[in-house]
Structures are given as C-alpha cells and as structure tokens.
C-alpha cells in the first residue's frame, strides 16, 4: 500500500556529527527492503527517520508521493520493532500486544484473535499474562515482534528483530515473516539485520549502508554474485570474501591474473587491453575455493593454521595471525587438513576483480 521515496536524506546530530548523508532510495510497495551495514553506520537512525521518530535534517521522505518529513509517527501508518524492544513495562504481554489495537478501537474479539494468533506463532502462549520483567531476553524480543505483527500497518519497520532468538525459533520466525510478507503482498517492510541468512532469504532488495551513505542496492543474489565494491563483497557473505593481490596479465572475455604470492587466477570478468598490468585484488569467497594440485593454476597456496568444523562444512584459516586471514570453506569435516599446505583455485565465474576498491565489472 505504500511507496517510499527518500531523496537526499541526511542526519546530523547536534549540528556536527554527520551520521547519514544524501540517502536516495525508492522503495516500491510490497518490497521487503533489508538494511545491512557495519555496526554504527546509521541503520537504526535511518529506520527511525522513516518512522518519524528522528527529525530528518536534510532531504525529503515521501510516502505515497506525499512529503511526510513533518508528519508525526502515528499518522504514517507504520509499525516498528525496536532494537531495544521498548516494551511497556507496566503491561502484561497480552496488553503490550493489544495496545495498538485498543488505541485503534478494534473490537475485543478482533483484538483477541490477533493476539492469540501472534502468540501462537511466537510461542508466547504461556507468558501472555506475565509482565516483561519476568521474561527472558528472547521472550521479550518475541513480544516486541508480536506487537507489530498484530497490527496491520502500511509499512513494517524491524530493527534487528531476531537477534536474541535461538536458531530454531529464528528460522521459524524468519519463515513466518516471509509468509506474512507473502500473505500481504502489498505491505512494505523495512528490516535491519546483521544476519546474512536473514538478509539473503528475506530481502527483495538489500541496501548496504556504509560510510554515511549507500554502498549498493540490489537483490540478494546481485549483491552476492556481483558486488560493486570490495566493501560490499566482503560485507555480504560469511566468512567474508578473500581478497588477494595480483596483476592482470591477460585480458579479454576472460582475464588472467598473476598472483603476487604466486599462482595464477582466471576470472570471467571481461577486461580490455588497457587493463593489462593493472594491479588488482582478486576476490574469491571461501565457499568458492576448491582444492587443486595444479602447479600454476592455483589462486592461493598456504598452510592451514586453524580448522573450524561446523559439521556440514569446515573452515580453513590460512595465515590466521594476519588481521584478515584467508579463509576457505570446504563441505564436510576436514580436521586432518590442519597444518598442511594446500593449493586452492576457483571457477572463473566466481572470481571477482577489484581495482581501487571498485569491481572491475562495474567501472
């Protein structure tokens, strides 16, 4: 039901501390936009500005074509889950959840039904009559989520709604949110998270915030597959993409790079003659590394310092004492690799090239 348009939005605290600058963003009705970005980059601030809780110090925010910079939160038709939960401490869980509906003068039956449904979904049934102080951290967070679910707003704003839930519940709630979204294809959602999986699975588009501005906007797969900068490349995907320095030696539809540390990489990123000799960073995601025995056609060779077995996969850390170690991710359990030297390469399609922090693909 709502399109949002941010034009040149900026936020300055106390006249001096710039937090956000020149944010331009078009959010279409029915989208689920996920904001990601390093801690402290201004995700919550942006969300709060959209909610109307924080003055917009520059630019305009339009909802459905109407400038709402000065419209109070209540009239923007939004629901919000706060990062700090912000439960009403003097109300029981049930009252917390039904507060907005009561305000909206919904009938008791309607309220009850909505609350019961949300409670069931979030497994809050047994706690409906407790006060927030008698709940665990995760339970509090679920109440906060439930509170926004029971309403039926034009725009949902979620600030890290799942960060305190356990894995099972997180998956369940995530799916619930996805279904909620699906069942209301018209409602717009904006979602802040730190969780890669959440961002990747939920988002229609992901907005990566960094350096007071937007680093890239795109669908999850776009961001994953074709990051336009080293920052985004490293930010999306966990563990982060490995960046290894090299020099372009062959150009064309495929590019060949001689790695500074030895070995050669081949990338499907097309280059022109002019690029020959360019110093680039070769980006390979840990999960894209595959072992190789080739004497030259390897992108990286190193001794496995640490292995982390996650069950389904094993992480291999090379040069773990470096600030950003090189990491490989192999399916299955490979504790035996520790201390061994291995060579790794990757499918050219999955080899990214960055120059001057920007992707060569996008220059």
């Amino acid at each position, binding site marked *: 039901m709502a399109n949002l348009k941010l034009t040149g939005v900026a936020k300055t605290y106390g006249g001096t501390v710039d937090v956000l600058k020149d944010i331009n963003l078009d959010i279409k009705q029915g989208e689920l936009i996920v904001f990601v970005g390093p801690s402290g980059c201004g995700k919550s601030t942006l969300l709060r500005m959209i909610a109307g809780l924080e003055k917009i110090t520059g630019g305009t925010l339009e909802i459905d074509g*109407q*400038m709402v910079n*000065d419209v*109070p939160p209540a*009239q923007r038709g939004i629901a919000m889950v706060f990062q700090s939960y912000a439960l009403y401490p003097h109300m029981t869980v049930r009252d917390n959840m039904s507060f907005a509906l009561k305000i909206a003068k919904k009938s008791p039956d309607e309220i009850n039904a909505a609350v019961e449904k949300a409670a069931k979904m979030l497994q809050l049934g047994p706690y409906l009559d407790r006060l927030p102080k008698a709940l665990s951290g995760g339970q509090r967070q679920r109440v906060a989520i439930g509170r926004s679910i029971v309403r039926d707003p034009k725009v949902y704003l979620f600030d890290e709604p799942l960060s305190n839930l356990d894995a099972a519940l997180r998956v369940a709630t995530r799916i619930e949110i996805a279904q909620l979204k699906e069942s209301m294809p018209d409602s717009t959602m904006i979602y802040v998270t730190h969780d890669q999986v959440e961002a990747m699975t939920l988002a229609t588009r992901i907005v990566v915030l960094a350096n007071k501005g937007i680093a890239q906007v795109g669908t999850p797969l776009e961001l994953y597959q074709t990051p336009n900068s080293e920052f985004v490349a490293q930010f999306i995907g966990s563990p982060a993409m490995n960046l290894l320095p090299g020099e372009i030696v062959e150009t064309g539809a495929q590019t060949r790079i001689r790695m500074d540390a030895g070995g050669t990489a081949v990338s499907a990123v097309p280059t022109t003659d002019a690029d020959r000799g360019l110093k680039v960073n070769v980006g390979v995601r840990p999960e894209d590394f595959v072992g190789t025995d080739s004497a030259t056609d390897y992108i990286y060779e190193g001794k496995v310092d640490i292995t982390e077995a996650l069950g389904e996969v094993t992480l291999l850390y090379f040069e773990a004492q470096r600030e950003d170690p090189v990491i490989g991710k192999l399916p299955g359990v490979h504790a035996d690799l520790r201390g061994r030297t291995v060579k790794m390469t990757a499918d050219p399609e999955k080899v990214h090239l960055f120059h001057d922090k920007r992707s060569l693909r996008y220059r």
Partner: protein
Amino acid sequence: MSPALQGIITIIIGVGGCAAYFYASNYVLDKFVFPARTDDHGRNISRATMIRPWLFLAPAIFFLSLYLVYPVVGSFVRSLYNRSGDTFIGLGNYTQMFSEEGFRIAFFNNILWVIFVPAAATFLGLLVAQLTDRLKWGNLAKSLIFMPMAISFVGASLIWKFVYANNPEIGIINAVRDYFGMNPIDVLQIPFWNNFFIMFILVWIQTGFAMVILSAALRGIPEETVEAAIIDGANPFQIFFKIKVPQIMGTIVVVWTTITILVLKVFDIVYAMTGGNFDTEILPSYMMDYMFRDDGRATAVAFVIMVVVTPVMVWNIVQARKEMN
C-alpha cells in the same frame, strides 16, 4: 450542602472536568480545527502539533499566571514604592535595605541556610534511602524518619524545645550536660552556631522528603548496572558513590532544589524558636517582620529571595537541557 459532599462533588467535577477538558480539547483540535484528513494534511498536522502542548499546559498556565505571576508582578511594582505605597522611589527600598545591618545578617544567615540545609537533608535522605533499601524493617525505618514531615512546623518547634530548652528539666541536651555536671547552656544563644541548631530542625523535617524521592529514584536504577559493578569488584561504597549516585544525579538536583526553595520560604521555625533574635533572622522571617507593615520593604525582600534562587534555577535549566539531548 455539607462541605464534605461539596468536596466529593468537587473532586468528581475537578478530576472529571480536567480529564474531559484534555480529552475534548484534543479531540476538537484533531477533528475540527485541524482535521488530518483534508487536503493540507501535513500542514494541519504540524499546526496541531504546535498547538497541542499548549492545550496540555493551559490549565497549569492559568493557575500559575493568575495565582503566582500576577501577584509577583504586582509585588514587584509595589516594591518600587515607599512604605505607604504612594510615592515611587525606584530601587530605594533595595538600597536602603542593603545598608542595614539587620538585613545583612539575615542575608548572611540565609546563605548559610541555603547551603547547609539542602546539603544535609539531601545527604541524610540519600543515606537513609540507601541503607534502608534492602533492610527487612526498612519500611518501618523509613516511616519513622518520614514522620517529622507530617508534623506541622509549630509541632516541630515544640518538639525541639524539648531538646534545646536550657532548663535541664525540660531540654534533653542540658539534661545530659547536667548529668555530666556541666552548666546548662542555651544553644539558641550561642552566636553563629545557634543558626545550625535551628537549621537542624529543618534538616530533621526534610530528610524524610529527600528520602522518599531518592529512594524511588534509587529503585529506578537498572539493576544490571549494579550487578555489573558487583562483578567488577566494587565494594558497597563504590557502588553507591560511583554507580548509583551519578545515575540519580538528576533526582538529587530536584531534591536539592526543592529543599532550597523551601528554605527560602520557611520562617515559622525561626519565629517559633527565637523569633529572629540572637542574630538568627533569615530573609523569610525578616520579610515577615515587614509584611503588612511596610509592604514596599517586604516585597523588596521577596525579590531578593527570588534572586537568591537564581543560581539554582540556572543549574536546573542546564540539567534539563542535558536531559533533553
């Protein structure tokens, strides 16, 4: 109609009326004056937002301006006239006052009061609030400490006569001195220090006030911060002074201010204990000496009192600014 019935009706009308006023005026504002649904949606809403605070404030402002501001302004004008109120003498009352020793003594004493009483009452109140916080009989202790608050100033002065009286058969201080073979002394006549004996009465009364407010504040401190400090190895003193007190600083300012203000108003105690003699006069009692006799002078003193409170005002505003950011 019996006054009791009248009172009940007033409560209903007053409370209901207030609630109705606030509700109705908000309703009218939103629905009729600046309805949000028309074309200039945004403008109307922001206009309504500008007006709404004043709806909330209106009754309070009405009372404040009619019952306090209006007399204050009137009194200020009055303070510029002579004692009979027929000749304008500018700041004559003020200049003359400051040239008089009696006033200077009162002024000096008042400074003592303003420093000592709020400090002592707040400190003791804080101490009691903290000490009784986790005591099983804490509530009882608090009630006992609070009790003086409930005693009228006259009653309180009487109580302290039983302490200070120089007859060892009445005053307990002199009874103790007598027991140790010392001569009775009249503590209310010891120059300078007598002020403190009188001040202590107010401290005794106001500690309960400070305690009640501060203990509510102490209870509002997030427990996790205290727990974190416990784990950090802080001892109870450090927890109190480094964790708790700074977190309730705002409330301490409030309590301090309130007591300071009270100090600037209370004359009953001085009146009842010494009648302002033995150099124990303070500004409020000095003012009462002139009240209804020389209104020019009395109102001038009132304004001096208001000026004395300026630093406290400034302090509060600074604090309020800090909180708002």
